[in-house]
């Protein structure tokens, strides 16, 4: 890298690298069109199962933890959309352990493009659109049937939570993957934070133990993806009784997540020694 390059130029180059690799993989997967659409359909169906379970649960009750199906639809749609987009953009990063084991990470490190951008875009596949697509459908449905009293701040909170939620999940993907620098086989561990976390926030905070809810506010800040803003949008009381400022604080939580993930990635890369193959 040239010394006088600015930060923004570096960031642009990282995004462009991501874009080039992702476009290459898209062309590659589109070579088998039938297979692509089959897999997209399968992904749509597989990721919709969680909502089918919600529908079946609401066959037997009309309230879960005091929340209605439409309100759970809002939680489900926002959580699924944020996780789905994060998975689309950076989900491939979880193959890091395999790349270290097989030595292909070394190849990425010597290419004149940021290694993290390459890792995130490697094996990029549009079939991962399945989850965000079905989540959008549920979200739109919930917004049309929910009797929300729309004010300016509520209108603004919806796009804000989608952006911040995607950033938070992306940071968790990257931060979780960097664990594999030290613990190469721990790939599945981050599933408990990404997929497990998304499942957690499909459901209203009222049904969980207070310690668990506090853990995702002050520990891994999943509550900022949708729980806290949803309390404001749906006008629900906070089971923890936190100050209302928390309901608007998703951008701060997202920024902290990005800083933590970036620090973890740098520490991991410094600790990395090639396997020598």
């Amino acid at each position, binding site marked *: 890298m040239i010394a006088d390059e600015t930060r923004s130029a570096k960031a642009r180059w990282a995004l462009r690298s991501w874009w080039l690799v992702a476009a290459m993989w898209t062309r590659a997967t589109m070579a088998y069109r039938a297979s692509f659409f089959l897999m997209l359909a*399968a992904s749509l169906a597989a990721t919709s199962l969680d909502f089918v379970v919600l529908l079946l649960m609401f066959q037997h009750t009309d309230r879960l933890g005091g929340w209605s199906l439409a309100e759970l639809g809002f939680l489900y749609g926002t959580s699924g959309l944020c996780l789905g987009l994060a998975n689309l953009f950076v989900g491939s990063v979880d193959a890091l352990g395999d790349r270290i084991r097989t030595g292909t990470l070394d190849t990425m490190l010597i290419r004149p493009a940021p290694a993290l951008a390459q890792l995130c875009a490697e094996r990029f596949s549009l079939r991962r659109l399945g989850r965000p697509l079905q989540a959008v459908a549920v979200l739109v449905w919930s917004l049309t049937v929910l009797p929300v009293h729309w004010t300016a701040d509520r209108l603004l909170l919806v796009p804000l939570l989608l952006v911040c939620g995607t950033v938070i999940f992306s940071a968790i993907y990257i931060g979780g993957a960097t664990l594999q620098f030290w613990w190469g086989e721990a790939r599945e561990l981050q599933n408990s934070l990404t997929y497990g976390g998304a499942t957690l926030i499909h459901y209203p905070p009222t049904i969980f133990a207070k310690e668990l809810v506090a853990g995702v506010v002050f520990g891994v800040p999943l509550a900022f993806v949708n729980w806290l803003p949803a309390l404001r949008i749906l006008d629900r009381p906070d089971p923890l009784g936190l100050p209302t400022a928390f309901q608007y604080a998703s951008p701060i939580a997202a920024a902290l997540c990005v800083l933590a993930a970036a620090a973890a990635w740098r520490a991991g890369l410094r600790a990395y020694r090639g396997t020598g193959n």
Partner: protein
Amino acid sequence: MDTSVEAAADTSAQLRPERGEPGPDGRPEGAGRQDIGRQDAGRRQAGRLYLAIAQGAFRRYSTYRAATVAGAVTNTVFGFILAYTFLALWQARPGLGGYDSVQAVTYIWISQSLLVTVAVWGGGFQDEVQERFRTGDIAIDLYRPVDFQGWWLATDLGRAAFHLFARGVLPTLAGALAFSLTLPADPLVWAVFLLAVLLAVVVSFGLRFLVSLTGFWLHDSEGIRAVMLVVAMFFSGMLLPIGLFPGWLGELAHVLPWAALIQIPTDILLERRSGFAVLTGLGFQLLWAVLLLAAGRAAQLLATRKVVVQGG
């Protein structure tokens, strides 16, 4: 999915008996193999061979300790989340589906403990077979003097034995510590439960074997596997007990083979099936196991007739 499985595929070749891997009696396996077919001694030899294959698979999976711990932790985290959702549902509707809330929470923890053992998501030997289709090594598997179906069944039983222990104990313990669970005190119930799990693994193997064999015709069974995952997750009762499905969907789910994977073993452990109902449950599993293995055998015969090996 498990990295262990992908990594395991690399080492599978080394565990083939042809390489002279010592059998359980310490002799190289290859040395005793010519006798197979000499009636009784041959049959004993074959039994020992399959046992050695299963033991090899058990050892192979136990090598990846970090992956195993990571997976068990993930099952435990999901157990926590889903247990709370079930508690909320049973709080709204006590006694739903004939389960009380303690049984419902136990259902979640037991199903999480069984998820990987009975491979509801697919995987296990499937990943290895798929890779062997891709590389063409499948041709070698077919002319080995070991039965193709028997070989992979033995490896899958070895894998399942390891996973039952490694992926089952931690979630069950965590669940028992954090929630009040109802687990049977009678050792006989546990014994019958283990038998039901064994049958569940065989049924699961039968289903996955058929899916893998589509590789002979489709070159890539990835799409079929993805569809099967959806069907299996839903109809096994992994997401919700089958008794909660509405109307005809519930009736259909009760007779499909996937009910043998999670619903029946869990109901036996919860003592919701007792006496004669235990026998009908086990009989249902056995029936599907036999049917699926027979179908797999027939498909294998068809497939081997059409296989064309392209040089070496």
